[in-house]
């Protein structure tokens, strides 16, 4: 799990280093290509302390295992699901990656925290968990950023947690 963390962290760090102003277009191209293969970097904004020691729960609860580092409103409570955006919103092409432990099967999973964009904040089921979350100088690990930032409409609505695969140890 830790090595995979580092793998994704490294790729995201490299992305951040590459995305200088002068190379913005090239970097965005890489970003979108990367997004097609693997939703990158996610986010969320700062917030209240919530369920930092949560163990489990359903997709409409902050305690749900996939939400171990989510900071935002759960799309499951806003017309979407834990892996789909609500109707009428647009998913963020960039995001950030975390690793969460599923107590149901004992496996660790790589998850992508994507924001859903284009409507104002849902305001329902706020969730703030921060396992292995890092400040904004490490954006690949940060959930305070608005990851709708690169969308045509950058308004933030809610956040999903999408399973990308098993984190092999």
């Amino acid at each position, binding site marked *: 799990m830790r090595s995979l963390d580092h793998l994704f962290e490294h790729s995201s760090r490299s992305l951040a280093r590459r995305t200088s102003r002068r190379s913005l277009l090239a970097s965005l191209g890489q970003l979108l290509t990367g997004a097609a293969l693997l939703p990158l970097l996610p986010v969320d904004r*700062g917030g209240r302390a919530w369920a930092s020691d949560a163990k489990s729960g359903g997709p409409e609860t902050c305690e749900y295992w996939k939400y171990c580092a989510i900071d935002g409103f759960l799309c499951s409570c806003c017309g979407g699901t834990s892996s789909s955006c609500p109707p009428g919103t647009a998913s963020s092409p960039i995001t950030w990656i975390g690793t969460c432990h599923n107590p149901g099967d004992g496996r660790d999973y790589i998850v992508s925290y994507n924001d859903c964009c284009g409507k104002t904040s849902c305001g329902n089921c706020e969730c703030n968990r921060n396992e292995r979350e890092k400040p904004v100088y490490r954006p690949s690990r940060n959930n305070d950023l608005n990851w709708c930032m690169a969308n045509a409409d950058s308004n933030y609505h809610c956040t999903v947690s999408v399973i990308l695969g098993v984190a092999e140890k």
Partner: protein
Amino acid sequence: MGCLMRSAPLRSAATLCLTLSVLAHAAPPPLPAEHLTVQQLPPKSPHWVYVYDEAFNNEIDARVHLFDGDSYRRLGQIDAGFTPSVNLSPDGATTVVATTYFARGSRGARTDVVEFTDNTTLAVTGEIVLPPKRVETAPSLFNIAYSPDGHFLYVAYLTPAASFGVLDPAHGKVLGEIDTAGCVLVIPSGPNRVSSICESGRLLTVTLDTQGHEAARALSEPFFDPDRDPVFVQGIPTTRGYAFLSFLGEVHEVDLSGTRPAFAQPWSLVSPAEQGRWRPGADQVGAIHRALGRLYVPMHQGGEGTHKDGGTEIWVFDMPSHRRLASWPVQAAGLSRVLAVQVSQDPAPILFAASNAADVAVFDALSGKLRHVEKHLGQTPWMMLNP
């Protein structure tokens, strides 16, 4: 008033009732006509505090509340749009808000703009339109910041390419943009220096020329370990720079008075026995009374991943000696966890503490005595500023 009484023995009571009835109808005199006015702010006080309210449940409608820590009155409001960056000018005369508006309210074309509010009237007096790049993140003093002389205004950009804008507030112009090679935020020092925090734990310091263009840049040595013990980006102003607290409770004092940052030997908020159990955690994770050298930190018991959990206690430190002076349990005062603290800089200071229930408590900053709890001061008060 019903006073109908037919029996003789009750005549005196009836008379009394009638008298009271007449008096009731005769008094009080009518209220005078009123004249509609707009309230003027009183002279500013060191006990004012500007409360950043993200309005997270309806995020396009953030605002800044001006609150008086003596009268406990809400004095007014500054509108702040979507996920704003907020700061005060060095003289405290201006509140500056960098924000985003959408053409159709919650949707449509994005406009990023810096708005200037006169703090004597709370009226917006000017604006500068930005490129649509400003960082949209949790509040800190380094999302937007003036140079200490007020000549330049710096705005952090993240698209996610990292850079910052240099603005001329006197002439309402964007002077340029400086690429920061992945380092983020704008920490001002001197008349023309801007430092950004890098993921390697270093500071990148860019020196500007008189036109606001890059003249030089230098990368410091690492001053913290971002893997083992990252620092919060919510630096706290000291007399010569800023103090950055780490997740585990180390205090990193950075002296920015020279051309290059100087890093003091870190010291710890916690004893060896407390390390890993007690730690700082909040959105605004500390406040310093600079003349007294006192540091106030929301602390809680918790492990990895609890760095945004608010404090159940406020710990008070003497910065020169690194000695802990007090621990004030806020929950004993009826508060929920503290997410932001600020202290006034006058000789009779008060400590403001904003909770995750959106209450703002007012403490005597010397004794810890709770003076007042202002309930629901906004929706999500995550940062507080004072002149």
